[in-house]
């Protein structure tokens, strides 16, 4: 893939990037994918070259539903990236996908980072972020041939452990 620019950041995804190139190629088609071990069949949230469960180096990309639950989050009140300053406060969420939750051990899941955005890809209001909220992947157009996976709240009941912080006034 060529280089892309998003908010002044140059994203370099060379042809020999065996971890992330396929992820962003799929995103450019509006599909969320994770790696699946071709031997034991388990999915992994981080698209590394080997299977953390069986050490196999054989893998394939697998499309997932794109639905999940916020597992943890942070609200950026102060950013050190100048091109993000006009967005504060904004939420970065760690989303646990519906697929393979609690497998192969109870603490495991497929967890992916993104911003919590609204229907127009503006940052979602801080009071709407929380652990346990249901979300789905959406794909934010950046440049021709590149879309950034993001997360949007969906109208489903909270799931599992729920918590949110108190948003300061003003």
């Amino acid at each position, binding site marked *: 893939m060529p*280089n892309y620019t*998003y*908010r*002044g*950041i*140059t*994203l*370099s*995804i*060379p042809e020999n*990037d065996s*971890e*992330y190139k396929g992820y*962003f190629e799929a995103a450019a088609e509006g599909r969320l994918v994770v790696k699946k071990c071709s031997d034991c069949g388990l999915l*992994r*949230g*981080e698209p*590394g070259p080997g299977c*953390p469960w069986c050490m196999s180096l054989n893998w394939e990309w697998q499309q997932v539903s794109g639905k999940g639950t916020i*597992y*943890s*989050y*942070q*609200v*950026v*009140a*102060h*950013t*050190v*990236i*100048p091109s*993000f300053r006009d*967005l504060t*406060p*904004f939420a*970065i969420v*760690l989303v646990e996908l519906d697929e393979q939750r609690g497998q192969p*051990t109870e*603490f*495991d*899941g*497929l*967890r*992916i*980072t*993104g*911003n919590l955005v609204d229907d127009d890809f503006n940052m979602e209001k*801080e009071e709407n972020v929380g*652990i346990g909220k249901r979300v789905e992947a959406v794909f934010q157009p950046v440049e021709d041939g590149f879309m*950034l996976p993001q997360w949007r709240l969906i109208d489903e009941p909270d799931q599992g*452990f729920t*918590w949110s*912080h*108190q*948003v*300061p006034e003003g």
Partner: protein
Amino acid sequence: MAGNPRDKYCIVGVGETEYSRASGRTTRALGAEAIRNAMNDAGLTPDQVDGMLSYHGGDSTPSTSIQYDLGIRPNFYMDCSGGGSSTEALVGLAIGAIEAGMCDVVAIFRSMNGYSNVRIGGTGARASAPIGGLDLMKRPYGLISAVQQFAYTFTRHMAEYGVKSEDLAAIKVAHSIHASNNPKALMKHRVTVDDVVNSRWIIRPVAHLLDCCLETDNATCVIVTSAERARDLKHKPIYIKGVQGRGTKPGGDFHYQHGPISRVAGHYIAPRIFDLAGVKHEDVDITGCYDAFTYTVLLQFEDYGWCEKGEGKDYVTSGIINLGGRRPNNLSGGHLCEGYTHGMNMVIENVRQLRGTVDDYCPGALEGDHTYDYAEGGCRQVRDAKISMNMGWGTPAVGSSLIMGNVLS
């Protein structure tokens, strides 16, 4: 445990530069000064130091340059990539190098213009460089700085265990009390819980400005040698009881994929260090628990077993960690108040505490004559401290620890 080196090696010299936000010098100049100060502290001449170890993040000067500046010729040196939790681990590697017969006396240093040149958050020159690899999954979302890298762990812990901003603030308050009796500290004034929770937010819900450490220009050094060699040096030897790390939690950089997210690396190495050192928690008089942020302190206290999981908030607000308390933490003020050194200042402080010659405001401090009056601008020497423990933090997934003592086991 086979080959347990307990009490066979010592820290014999410690030294540092001024902590500032504008050193006006290179990391080479800073490094040379810190090593020289540690050598003078130990009473070592250049021909007696034959090992050098350093750690850096592409922001320092190699041993092979600084050796020239001090007339040292190492038989062994390594400049390792690493940040927080490296100090303790390199103490262990120095022991290994000496044990292997590669050298006899090792100077371990960290030199950084951590405020005026290369800042940890990746701002400045680094921010405009193209990103690739695993940064692709973070930076486009505005996730870059250290507190952000740790925040998923902090937030989830806060949610699961009901930690409040005021609990975290108690850590900054304690360290600021200690720093107020440290002439070297960058931030010497005492702060209150209100000061911390009313400082501006950085990352909600886990860090206000005053929950974050002070990026600092400085260099630091500790010198390791055998207990035998230590006998005819200047100070009472400070014995190394045990060292562990850098140990990790499952998943390493991708720790948030596996295991309880609110558990940190200390959980996995804690049993090993206490076993190796032959001490129990209640034997430890002072701690040096890495305070990149207030939250790193609370998590490590829990996972090293100073309290039950989830009770860190009670431990840090109980007074135990304050000067005059049962087991004070970060007596120099640590990263939150003395200055950010990637962990070495906390080891230096514990060496001085165990010697009984902490450099506070007591007129006879360096001769060990302390008032034990802990009022602001006074003493910070802990009475009769015999055992210390340092707990280094790299990330939620990376940690190390070091237990030292001033008497043989």
